[in-house]
C-alpha cells in the first residue's frame, strides 16, 4: 500500500516564527488533506489539496502531485497552533484515507 512520510516528526517554535511541514507519498493520489489535531483530540480539516496551492489566513499548502509531496506553511505561529499536524492521502485505487505519522508542533510564548 501507499506510504506517507511526514517531516519533521517534532518541531518547537517561538511564537511569531514561520515553519514548513512536509508530506511525501509513495504513489499517485486522488486526494490529499491536512489536518490539525488539537489538544482535545479533535481532527480539524485544514486543506483538501490534491494538487495546487491554497491559502487560509496564516496557513497555506502546496501539493506537487507529479513529485509526490505536499507542504504546509504556517506563518506568524501562535500558541494555539500547537498540536499534531497530519497529512492523509487517498490513493488512486482505493477510497480510504491513509494517514502519516504526524508532525508534533509546540509553539512557545
Amino acid at each position, binding site marked *: 500500500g501507499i506510504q506517507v512520510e511526514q517531516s519533521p516528526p517534532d518541531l518547537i517554535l517561538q511564537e511569531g516564527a514561520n515553519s514548513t511541514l512536509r508530506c511525501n507519498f509513495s504513489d499517485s493520489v*486522488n*486526494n490529499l*488533506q491536512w489536518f490539525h489535531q488539537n489538544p482535545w483530540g479533535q*481532527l480539524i480539516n485544514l486543506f483538501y489539496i490534491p494538487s495546487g496551492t491554497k491559502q487560509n489566513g496564516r496557513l497555506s499548502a502546496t501539493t506537487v502531485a507529479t513529485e509526490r509531496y505536499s507542504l504546509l506553511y504556517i506563518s506568524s505561529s501562535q500558541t494555539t497552533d500547537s498540536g499534531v499536524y497530519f497529512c*492523509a492521502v487517498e490513493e488512486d485505487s482505493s*477510497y480510504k484515507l491513509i494517514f502519516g505519522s504526524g508532525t508534533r508542533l509546540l509553539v512557545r510564548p
Partner: protein
Amino acid sequence: EPEVTQTPSHQVTQMGQEVILRCVPISNHLYFYWYRQILGQKVEFLVSFYNNEISEKSEIFDDQFSVERPDGSNFTLKIRSTKLEDSAMYFCASKRGTNSGYTFGSGTRLTVV
C-alpha cells in the same frame, strides 16, 4: 458548516462488554468510515461503507467489529466483546463523492478497563 456528529464523546466500559459507538454523518454524503487512533499513534483506517454495505475493511476490523446504518441517518460501530487493546479514540468520517474531501467527527474516546 455541516458537521459529523459522534456520541458519546467518552465511554468507559469493562473488558468483555459490548459497546456501540454512534455517528450521524453529513446528510448528503454517500461514503462512511470508521478510524481509530491509539493514544500517541497515527490514525488508522478500520472500515468503509457505501451503498449499504462494507466496501473495504482493514486487518484490525475482525469478527468482533461490525457496522450498521440502520435508519439512513445513523452509522454505528459495534465492538462485541471489548479488550483492553480496544482503548482508543474512534473517529467517524464521511464524504460526499469520490472526488470530495473527508469530514471527521470529534471522536469517541473509548476506555476499556
